């Protein structure tokens, strides 16, 4: 990968209470790329995004964004850095009491002193970029899931961030909306010159649009590489994940005591 890393994870450990989530994670993410983080449910993918955004701090190691160690920043410095980040939540997290227009204008009104006429133009431009200029007067409850996510995308790029984070952007979308969101992520990353991180399960769409992929399993980076390298990978976990196989290193059954013991059956030995 290129040397101009925007984000660097260095031996990051993290746990929720006694349960370890991340164990010594090392990652480097270069500027201008779309990077996917893949892994099973509960593997700690979203935690990675929360560490980058400074919502939680690592129990050991450090996360560096644009040369700044996140957990060492004060509240004001962290908020200043967050203004350069955008995050798309899994279901959009639009403010339900504000219209589509006001949702997109929210950050501009909070963080800038731009006149309302200029905010109007900027909001319409952002909405046009996601194809929803005509929906600016609607309320979030009137939008479909795909539209809500596009509005949330317009809202998160409102201040032209250097870094965009996408938490499961493809979940619950029909194939058309899914391609639209995927295409938008790629196009906006390129045109706005930002870096995008996707946390996702969707293998096919991700392989189509990303530059680099990290696989997270049991709190460690199991594999990483470009889409072509990943497709050819012989690593058992990656192979199972990419091809959606039920049998492999990821077991079907959650860890439990012996089945016969749970059912109270004594097995006769022959």
């Amino acid at each position, binding site marked *: 990968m290129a040397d101009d890393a925007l984000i660097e994870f260095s031996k990051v450990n993290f746990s929720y209470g006694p349960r370890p989530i991340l164990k010594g994670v090392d990652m480097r993410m270069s500027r201008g790329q779309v990077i996917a983080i893949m892994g099973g449910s509960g593997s700690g993918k979203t935690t990675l995004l929360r560490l980058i955004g400074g919502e939680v701090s690592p129990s050991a190691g450090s996360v560096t964004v644009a040369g700044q160690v996140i957990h060492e920043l004060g509240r004001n410095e962290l908020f200043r850095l*967050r*203004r350069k980040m955008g995050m798309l939540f899994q279901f959009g997290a639009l403010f339900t009491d504000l219209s589509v227009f006001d949702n997109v204008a929210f*950050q501009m009104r909070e963080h800038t002193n731009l006149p309302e006429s200029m905010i109007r133009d900027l909001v319409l431009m952002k909405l046009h970029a996601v194809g929803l200029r005509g929906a600016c007067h609607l309320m979030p409850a009137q939008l479909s899931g795909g539209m809500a996510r596009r509005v949330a995308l317009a809202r998160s790029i409102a201040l032209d961030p250097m870094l965009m984070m996408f938490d499961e952007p493809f979940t619950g979308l029909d194939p058309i909306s899914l391609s639209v969101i995927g295409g938008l992520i790629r196009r906006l990353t390129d045109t706005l010159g930002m870096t995008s991180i996707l946390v996702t399960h969707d293998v096919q769409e991700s392989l189509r649009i990303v530059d680099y992929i990290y696989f997270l399993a049991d709190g460690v980076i199991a594999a990483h590489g470009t889409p072509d390298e990943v497709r050819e990978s012989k690593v058992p976990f990656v192979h199972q994940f990419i091809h959606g196989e039920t049998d492999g290193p990821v077991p079907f059954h959650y860890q439990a005591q012996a089945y016969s013991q749970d059912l109270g059956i004594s097995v006769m030995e022959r």
Partner: protein
Amino acid sequence: MIGMISLAKRIKTVIESIGHRVVGSIWRLGCATRFVLLVLLKSMPGFLRFHLITREIYFAGVLSLIIILVSGLFVGMVLGLQGYETLQKFGSESAVGTLVALSLVRELGPVIAALLFASRAGSAMTAEIGLMKATEQLAAMGMMAVDPVARIVAPRFWGGVFSMPLLAAMFSVMGVFGGYLVTVVFIGVDEGSFWSQMQSSVDFRYDIVNGVIKSCFFGVVITAIAVFEGFDAPPTAEGVSGATTRTVVTSSLAILGLDFVLTAFMFRGVS
């Protein structure tokens, strides 16, 4: 011997569980106090952009007007009827105006308006903040470098605090009007003595101002409980519904308890 040991164990478990509950409640009270202090500290942006607070006064205050006014009218009418019924036995039915007005401005106005406010506006505040948390709107706001406590919680808190005394005052006014309707218009008590007795026996400083102070206290308590419960709610449907119920129950109990304490300090039989 074994029976004694098991009994001792059971007693220990009971004492432990009581201890856990007490410590848990005190812990929660501490968290709530800290949260309210945080809200107060972060109130300045709301005051600088007063339209945020005005909006909340509309939602908490103006939208509660109907229930407050209608309830006030009926409470005043009932007070008028009951007061007349009792007072006429002693031939002093003209004092019914005094009875209605004093009952309302000292006690019923602030207390019933507060109870209604807690169930109408307090529960809505908790549910709204709780749902915003459950649908990640607060997290999204934080990621946009906007502090949800300053932007969402503080304006709601102040909106409620400003609305409560105004609502209590309107409740009392409607109540007095209800009492007037029943006793003067329908029953035929002399209008002049109804108003003049009321005027001479209701003291502005002692009765009305104390009533307003009470309702200010209730406003602070209700909205503090409502915003804390909303912000602290587990982000699930069950969590939000539980928080909403707790808001209504806790603030109703707090209103009644606090009312006793305030009354004990304010009204000592001196006029």
